[in-house]
């Protein structure tokens, strides 16, 4: 997708960003935007006015542009850590559908990790039913895509759901959400579910399970009648409660999204798209990936390999 962006613009953004850094400007969106990959379509449009003249100049040297466009991610990754940029990570997933056997271990692992009640699912496995029963079925494990342009956050009347600046994870403030469910209608992928207040029997019967809180958002809420997150919309958080203080995950230490950690076929790859050497970045470079409903311009951060 990013290759489609007119390279003069990315070139000129890189130039401007490095200029700003060199003159020691305060951290701004532009400062953090040295990496053209980090620019969402909207941000680009917002800043087109600023860079118009630069783009014109850059477009004259068309030959250089392609090279620099590709070089940009590597060049900027150092800048991302050294300067005080807003966006430190761009977390996402690459899901290899040919490795998925449809065992739904991810669904169960997610439930165990986040203690979600019945009817609330942060990830599901949908099966594309084929016309011919002999065809190999297509399974699609479907967490929240943490879109670059999430349509769900704009419609929230109280800004209770938003995309985090530091890592692009779309979150919900349970204490602010009024439960209007407008965001559910706005999500084109069915990634959001409403917590109606149902509980599994072990919790309804007030066994020891009922007192085990959910680690979500590190808020450790136990399930209580009519208390948040009951009456709220809920969604996948990429298990952000497992991040360290700097916002990093650690696969070796087990601090990794539960679905990716548990996947029996190793179909779910998780990582930082901003790091050119991450597993997910490598996969994107080497394989042909698709995203769902590209036509809506949401730019999901979850890719599928077919």
């Amino acid at each position, binding site marked *: 997708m990013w290759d489609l962006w007119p390279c003069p613009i990315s070139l000129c953004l890189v130039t401007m960003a490095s200029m700003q850094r060199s003159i020691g400007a305060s951290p701004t969106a532009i400062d953090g935007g040295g990496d053209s990959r980090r620019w969402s379509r909207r941000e680009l449009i917002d800043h087109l006015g600023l860079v118009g003249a630069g783009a014109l100049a850059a477009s004259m040297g068309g030959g250089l542009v392609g090279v620099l466009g590709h070089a940009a991610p590597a060049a900027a990754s150092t800048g991302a850590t050294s300067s005080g940029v807003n966006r430190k990570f761009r977390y996402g997933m690459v899901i290899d559908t040919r490795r998925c056997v449809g065992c739904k271990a991810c669904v169960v692992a997610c439930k165990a990790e986040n203690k979600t009640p019945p009817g609330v699912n942060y990830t599901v496995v949908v099966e594309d039913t084929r016309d011919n029963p002999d065809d190999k079925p297509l399974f*699609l494990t479907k967490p929240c895509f943490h879109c670059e342009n999430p349509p769900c956050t704009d*419609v929230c009347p109280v800004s209770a759901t938003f995309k985090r600046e530091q890592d692009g994870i779309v979150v919900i403030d349970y204490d*602010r959400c009024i439960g209007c469910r*407008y965001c559910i*209608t706005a999500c*084109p992928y069915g990634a959001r*579910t409403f917590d*109606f207040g149902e509980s599994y029997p072990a919790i309804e019967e007030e066994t020891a399970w009922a007192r085990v809180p959910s680690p979500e958002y590190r808020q450790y809420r136990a399930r209580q009648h009519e208390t948040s997150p009951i009456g709220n919309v809920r969604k996948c958080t990429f298990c952000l409660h497992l991040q360290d203080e700097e916002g990093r995950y650690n696969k070796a230490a087990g601090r990794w999204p539960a679905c990716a950690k548990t996947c029996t076929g190793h179909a779910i790859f998780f990582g930082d798209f901003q790091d050119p050497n991450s597993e997910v970045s490598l996969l994107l470079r080497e394989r042909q990936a698709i995203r769902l409903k590209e036509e809506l311009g949401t730019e999901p951060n979850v890719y599928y390999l077919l």
Partner: protein
Amino acid sequence: MHDRHLKQMFWGAGIVFVLVGVWGWYVRLTQGHLDTDYGSLIPWGLWVASYIYFIGLSAGSFLISALVYVFGVKRFEAIGRTALFAALVTLMLALLAIWADLGHMGRSWHVLAYPNFKSPMAWMIWLYGAYFLLLAVELWFLIRRDLVNGGRGSGWKARVYRVLALGSQEDSDVSVAHDRRVVRVLATIGVPVAIMFHGGVGALFGVVAARPAWNSGLFPILFLLSALASGGALLVLVTAVFQDGWRRNRDTVVALGRLVLGLLLLDVLFQVSEYLIAGYGNVPGHVAGLKLIFTGPYWWVFWGWQLALGTAIPIALLAARRTRNDPRFVSLAGLLIAVGFIGLRLNIVIPALASEEVTGLAEAVASPRLSTEYFPSLSEWALTVGIVGLGLLLFGLGEKLLPQQKEDPVDVRP
């Protein structure tokens, strides 16, 4: 039928409905959303549909009252106050319905405290606030002199009037002329406000690109036309039942009937346009919504409720030479439209939601909350019926308590 019987029926229905509603509200307040039948695939149900229905009635009634107070249309003068009062009552009903729909009713103030003006919903709530104030103030100026006069005597009614008059004592014709100027200014401000908030309700659905059946530029316009048609129908009904009833308001009822016919036909034109474009376009998501409306499990909501009851029969009654001048038939048409448009509102909200965003979503997890099937639960119906009942009682009380239109000076122009 005698007028008195009509009013008794009105009160009887209101009381029964409210009693049913008490149970619905009890279930809602004690169990939250547990007893509702919608889920996460169809996240909005009967309450949202009734909300857009009531708010449509409010916007429609108000815009028709503006014919009198902004444009000075003499023919509808007799219903000016009723229209304004109807707008106020139905606005309250709409807010009640959407309040019950919230997951956290106690947090409704968040919309005022932390508004996100990128969201059409935030705009709507703020405009409702402005509109509510405007309606209340406009109505007060409209009946101020009657309140002053009525507050002179003794007894409970005079005491209520004295409180409502807010200390105003002036009853000269000059002061009434001043009141009228204020009303005219407020009504003039109200017209764009009403168009904005109700067009905004249409936009609330229209902007959702994820639901192709909503994502149409016609939606705001369609909402306004439906509002005008259903609001007009409500006014026909109220005029026929209240104040002096259909016998004395004969000319007004018949004239309103003509207006409603025009608005209804315009509304049908826009709906046909929406259906045709979507149908011929053949975009799967869009067509899925239409198929559900026309041939889905609730096909009768469209063919029976919305089309036959709410559109075809009323058009026939309002157009046929034998019935269009008879206030009884015109009132019947008003009743049919007012009831039939509930079907229209249900068909706006639910079918567009009832198809999976990603194929296989409804089968992925065995949960009634992840289903493309929806039929409102008993308590959902009860709560809604209760809101309707409250509306009937408020209309009744309004007629009993508030000064009547006939005391208005004839000339509304300053």
